């Protein structure tokens, strides 16, 4: 038995009223008409460009300790190097660290969602298709996982596995499978019994292929919307775990870890807390803005 709340959402997500996403002209027009989406995309492109440009923008190595340059305020020129965002208590250039942090945040955000989305979709397909005991078992495991606050599960697993890029991607990815699996499964269940499916089966079409083509085309919109928002929440979760010291690891500068380091020096310079926090806020906001548009366009019922 599922929670009534879950049921409500699954039904509203699963009916096959999602718009086909292949209408390119429509996509572009709808996108241009949404100022939020345009701002979000521009912001995200800027952040991705910053992450990619790396050493061209960042004046120095993100881990280069220079005690003589400690706690310089933003826009300080020292020894011919411009510290746009200032330096931290160890004299490390904050902009350089933010650039490397951008790579980690984006990498973790997008990869973990790819892992979770693929896993969840596959599980939802198999579970809904197989039905019976397997289905009940899988859904019960999902309930169990949802009985944990997400961050607690991630914390506990990271405590066991230890910090590391691969670990955090794995943990954040795997712990997000349930939402996708539920949506896809609900769609499979509703489609499995439809007349066109029964007819196609009677004609000898293999059910697995039917499910993949019909179910996936029907839910892909919802999946994209879910995935976009979960990129945002994954980036927040990674920053949170890094802030608690259970993220990528001490030697890699991440936005969350920078804020954690800044805690002890908050009164020494506003730039220590301001810039990494802004970086997280802008990235998450950009993704959420795009997600908002994607939801309105692909799946108006989710509004």
């Amino acid at each position, binding site marked *: 038995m599922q929670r009534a709340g879950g049921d409500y959402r699954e039904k509203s997500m699963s009916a096959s009223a999602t718009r086909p996403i292949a209408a390119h002209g429509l996509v572009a027009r709808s996108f241009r008409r949404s100022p939020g989406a345009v701002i979000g995309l521009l912001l995200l492109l800027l952040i991705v460009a910053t992450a990619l440009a790396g050493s061209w923008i960042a004046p120095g190595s993100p881990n280069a300790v220079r005690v003589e340059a400690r706690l310089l305020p933003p826009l300080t020129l020292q020894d011919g190097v411009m510290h746009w965002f200032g330096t931290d208590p160890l004299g490390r250039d904050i902009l350089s660290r933010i650039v490397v942090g951008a790579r980690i945040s984006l990498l973790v955000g997008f990869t973990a969602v790819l892992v979770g989305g693929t896993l969840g979709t596959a599980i939802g397909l198999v579970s809904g298709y197989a039905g019976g005991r397997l289905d009940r078992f899988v859904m019960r495991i999902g309930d169990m996982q949802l009985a944990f606050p997400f961050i607690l599960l991630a914390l506990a697993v990271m405590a066991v596995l230890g910090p590391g890029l691969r670990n955090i991607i794995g943990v954040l990815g795997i712990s997000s499978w349930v939402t996708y699996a539920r949506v896809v499964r609900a769609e499979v269940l509703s489609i499995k019994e439809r007349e066109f499916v029964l007819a196609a089966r009677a004609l000898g079409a293999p059910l697995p292929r039917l499910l993949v083509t019909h179910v996936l085309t029907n839910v892909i919109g919802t999946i994209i919307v879910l995935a976009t928002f979960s990129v945002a929440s994954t980036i927040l979760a990674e920053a949170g775990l890094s*802030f608690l010291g259970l993220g990528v690891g001490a030697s890699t500068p991440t936005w969350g870890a920078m804020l954690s380091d800044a805690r002890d020096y908050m009164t020494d310079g*506003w730039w220590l807390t301001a810039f990494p926090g802004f970086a997280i806020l802008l990235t*998450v906001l950009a993704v959420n803005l795009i997600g908002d548009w994607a939801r309105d366009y692909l799946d108006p019922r989710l509004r």
Partner: protein
Amino acid sequence: MLPYLARRLLDCLTVLVGVSFIAFALLFLTGDPTYLLVPENFSRAQIAEFRHLAGFDRPWYIQYADFLRHAAVGDFGLSLRSHLPAMPLVAERLPATFELAVAAMALSLIVTLPLGVVAATHRRTLIDSACMAGGLLGQSTPTFWLGLLLILTFGVDLRWLPVSGRGGLAHLILPTVTLAMYTMGRNARVVRASMLDVLANEYLRTAQAKGLPRVSVIYRHALRNALLPIVTVAGLDFGVLLGGAIITETVFAWPGLGRLIVNAIYEKDFPIVEAAVITIATVFVTLNLLVDVAYAYLDPRIRYS
């Protein structure tokens, strides 16, 4: 209703057994706890004897059955650090976390109900856009950063409010705002969406046509019906808040469950981690059950069979 409740209770129990298995498996995967427990100067023979006496040399399923038997009566063993029973340590932290979560939930509802309603009734106006932009901003702000900024502004610069620990109302303000920000952002949007759905119904047009005052139409007729999704989200929110409390409590040195868990994880104090995980899961599962029951009361169309 009764058979439904019985089945849901049984479900909750299965989920909790599953959670206990996950908690146990996590502990088991960290390896043999013997070395965390014995003094460094123990000889190999003494270690082997200790392991045998503590039962760590038995197969995992026997250890799990043992763990389950003790967990069922709330016995999670002794904290590896303080050597006090783990469950009472967890239980004494619960009120602080509840205080914070309830305050955050109250704040979130107080702010978002009127905001969402106003946004929905002024659809596509500047007010609506401002509310929704604010909501998105709230959802995108990292909790711990907001916490640090609030500490810096109201604690360090203005010196208006205490920045750490638990005490009177003044201590509660900054952590509550920090913890509530995410749910405020999301709920404003949920309330708005739910109100828009309801406002499109014909019975509201009828109510208005009958000449009922607008306030009465919106708050007595529309909002009441719009509450259903809000109850679901609020129920789920409490779980989100319990999880969010982990970070907020760390930022504000709030003596709750979250801070206990984080410290226990740093210190590899696994009995505490297990007791806390199971406690939180129990609270979470119970709340979900209550939400389902609340549903039946709010919407007579929902009948559980």
